[in-house]
């Protein structure tokens, strides 16, 4: 299963693209995706503790543009967005 993770705000710094791709062999929940993003950030940016903290504080949203909780199931190829803490206006 392929999950495309769209990046916003500070999380855009994770890649030169606007997204990250993850492959999973089985169905997962958002909490599993979060762990994978944490692993990715820890490996790619070991010096930057703020990035890891931001992933921990982020929400995620579905293709239907709904905020989804840690127990939301991902069971097919899809796009998910990471929503770090917000601050517009």
């Amino acid at each position, binding site marked *: 299963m392929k999950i495309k993770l*769209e990046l*916003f*705000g*500070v999380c*855009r*710094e994770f890649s030169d693209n606007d997204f990250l791709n993850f492959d999973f062999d089985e169905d997962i929940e958002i909490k599993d995706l979060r762990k994978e993003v944490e692993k990715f950030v820890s490996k790619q940016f070991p010096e930057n503790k703020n990035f890891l903290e931001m992933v921990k*504080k*982020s*929400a*995620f*949203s579905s293709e239907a*543009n709904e*905020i*989804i*909780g*840690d127990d939301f199931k991902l069971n097919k190829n899809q796009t998910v*967005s990471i*929503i*770090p*803490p*917000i*601050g*517009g*206006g």
Partner: protein
Amino acid sequence: MFHCEVVDVSKGEISLEKAQKFIESQKCGASLFFTGTVRDHNNDKTVTGITYDAHDAMVKKSFSEIYNDAISKLKLEHPAAFVEHAKGYVPLGGTSVIIAVACKHRAQVYEFSRFIIEEIKKRTPIWKKEHYEGENSKWLEGKQIQK
């Protein structure tokens, strides 16, 4: 009556003129215009501009929800609102957001406008990267969206 948009400032601009035309109505006795602009300092640093990032679809959805919540919570009569937020680099003094509202009576427009901007800050997925003198820049830490 409601209009909202995320405006990529490299392609277009947000303007008060457009907002004024949108909310004009003979049913409304009061209108109010709020603009957010980029100020020259924050946390003892000299700010030269802000890059705004947005999840466009979620932002527009959030703006609509905020508008509907305002109508039901504030019991507005003949409400109209125009909300546009910038996306991309906005220089010092530039406009980041316009909220134009109109209602039947004056007291309601103050509440209506305040409600919209405060809710945007709480729940709309927009992010700021501040640029400082000396070419440093930093994403500002905001508020966690509740899951």
